[in-house]
């Protein structure tokens, strides 16, 4: 669900000064531009104002349980994936829902007006774009539509940075979510770092309008072909793969596998994997009270299936063991998500592998469970 109908992609070239023009045009239109930046020894999304804020020359090396920032690359989008995804903006870690206020009648509820921030995401990876579409199904399927998410999502302007390199924990190729996005974006960039230019793909009329105002030249056919070739190159570099053939079905009969106990011996039940995953959506609610006691707030905040509270019902926790929690997490991603939403809950971004302190690898575990089948 992106605003405006998708037109046939048209291709332009974009220079670095033009990318700056694009960023200021978005700012002028009232967007808060979010893009990759160099944060605490990692690439993180943050507010950006110009190309100077982008992680030029930086890349990252990711492996199971490890992440290293390196300063030996060429280009603005030479890294693999930022630590977090667009989820932290569209489905934020903490969201105020409403306020209850005491009055002479008892109390009344003041709903928050739907969030009105208009984000422009610059440099979303194709897998992250798919992750947004996956969360759309969770929050925007009638009859229950999450109003804050809807407002943020409809307003968001999406600029993808197509992947021309893949990392050691990436497996989007297996999941069919990358390395190149073919739609669902307003604009998509493929970087040509040696020439400091980008191939620009236009995905929507509003993307078209903003590009027309900058006046980018039409891209020559060979540039489009070269971009495709670079994307295909990334497809060959995937550090991980996952055979998805019949996978949901086979995992569906793995509930009693001994493998879960084996994983549980390593898993710390820390929930990192769920926090960094761009599709994980679980939340809890939190009630806050003012000092005087006449205001009570309701907040929604990220939760994780690795906590004991998540499955608590009076009389006990349903998922007591780490094995049962890891089973819930992996089977939700790769098996039950299909039944719930008609697609996989994993886009193959590799974050859960990279950010797991003990390096548990979802592709390896899924494969082992399948073999035990």
């Amino acid at each position: 669900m992106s605003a405006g109908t998708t037109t046939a992609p048209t291709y332009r070239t974009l220079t670095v000064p033009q990318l700056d023009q694009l960023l200021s045009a978005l700012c002028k239109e009232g967007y808060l531009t979010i893009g990759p930046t160099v944060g605490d020894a990692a690439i993180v999304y943050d507010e950006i104002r110009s190309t100077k804020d982008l992680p030029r020359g930086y890349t990252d090396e990711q492996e199971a349980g490890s992440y290293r920032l390196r300063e030996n690359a060429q280009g603005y989008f030479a890294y693999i994936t930022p630590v977090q995804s667009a989820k932290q903006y569209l489905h934020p870690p903490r969201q105020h829902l409403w306020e209850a206020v005491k009055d002479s009648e008892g109390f009344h509820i003041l709903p928050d007006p739907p969030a009105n921030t208009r984000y422009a995401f610059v440099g979303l990876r194709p897998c992250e774009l798919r992750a947004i579409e996956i969360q759309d199904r969770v929050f925007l399927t009638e009859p229950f539509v999450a109003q804050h998410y809807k407002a943020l999502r409809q307003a968001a302007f999406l600029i993808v940075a197509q992947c021309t390199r893949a990392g050691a924990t990436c497996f989007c190729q297996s999941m069919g979510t990358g390395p190149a996005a073919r739609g669902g974006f307003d604009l998509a960039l493929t970087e040509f770092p040696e020439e400091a230019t980008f191939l620009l793909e236009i995905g929507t009329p509003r993307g078209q309008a903003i590009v027309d105002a900058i006046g980018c030249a039409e891209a020559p056919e060979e540039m489009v072909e070269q971009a495709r070739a670079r994307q295909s190159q990334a497809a060959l570099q995937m550090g991980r793969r996952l055979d998805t053939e019949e996978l949901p079905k086979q995992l569906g009969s793995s509930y009693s596998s001994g493998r879960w106990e084996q994983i549980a011996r390593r898993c710390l039940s820390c929930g990192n994997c769920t926090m960094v995953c761009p599709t994980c959506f679980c939340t809890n609610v939190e009630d806050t009270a003012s000092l005087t006691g006449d205001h009570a707030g309701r907040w929604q905040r990220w939760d994780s299936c690795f906590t004991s509270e998540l499955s608590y019902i009076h009389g006990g926790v349903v998922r007591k063991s780490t094995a049962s929690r890891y089973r819930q997490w992996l089977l939700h991603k790769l098996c039950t998500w299909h039944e719930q939403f008609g697609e996989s809950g994993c886009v193959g971004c590799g974050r859960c592998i990279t950010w797991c302190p003990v390096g548990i690898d979802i592709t390896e575990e899924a494969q082992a469970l399948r073999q035990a089948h």
Partner: protein
Amino acid sequence: MQPSIDVSSSPADPMTPRMFRVLRNYNDTADCYTLSLQAEDGDPLLFAPGQFTMLYAFGRGEVPISISGDPSDPGTLIHTIREVGPVTQALREVKKGGLIGVRGPYGTAWPVKEAEGNDVVFVAGGIGLAPLRPALYQVLHRRSRFGKVALLYGARTPNDILYRDELEKWRSRFDMQVEVTVDRSQAGWRGHVGVVTRLISRTGFDPVNTIAMVCGPEVMMRFAVAELTGRGVAQEQIHVSLERNMKCAVGFCGHCQLGPAFICKDGPVFVFPEVKRLLSIREV
């Protein structure tokens, strides 16, 4: 071109409650009480038997509670609640005239319509009688459309028996069988002692043409299903209501999942074969 977000026409946020006023709040037993509520905006809360709402107590939190009133009288919203923790305690403390936030109704319903032409067996354990009562009301309103009707109910002790007056009334009807049992007897109790599922064998119904509706602790439901199928009731004729932690009731929070099912949307009432396999595995 700007995306159009028409805030004015967007439906109410599904996470925002409506306000209801407490008409009555009375104790059924030492730890159970019944809230009778009325919508401040005057719009009745139409519901189907088996559905639940999310009840919000000011500053304390929100919990899923089944509607236990009569669906043909939606002007008064009835809930019977067992006090077990902070929110159910806070709801108990709301006096007549006080306000409670209500969202809903949510979830699937008992198959009352489908049960027409059949015998109907209700099996309730503890507070599980509350979610079944709306279905029982509906069956009794249209009594002639059903075959035999039986209510089998188990409570912990005689003092924990809910809806005593109504049980007496139902028991005195000639067109239904009412059996009550307790886990632990007390002085003066002359009824059954033992688990409710044992009553199934002493109940008259035609297994081939019976719809069973079962609500109670998960173990009790498993035993009830075993007894019922032992009598020849097909699993497809058995319906159960499940409970999981719920923070949203609309599919957003992920807490209520049982395998592929969101209990808040796909349940709480399931036809048994839908959940049979997962209920047999621990810690799903």
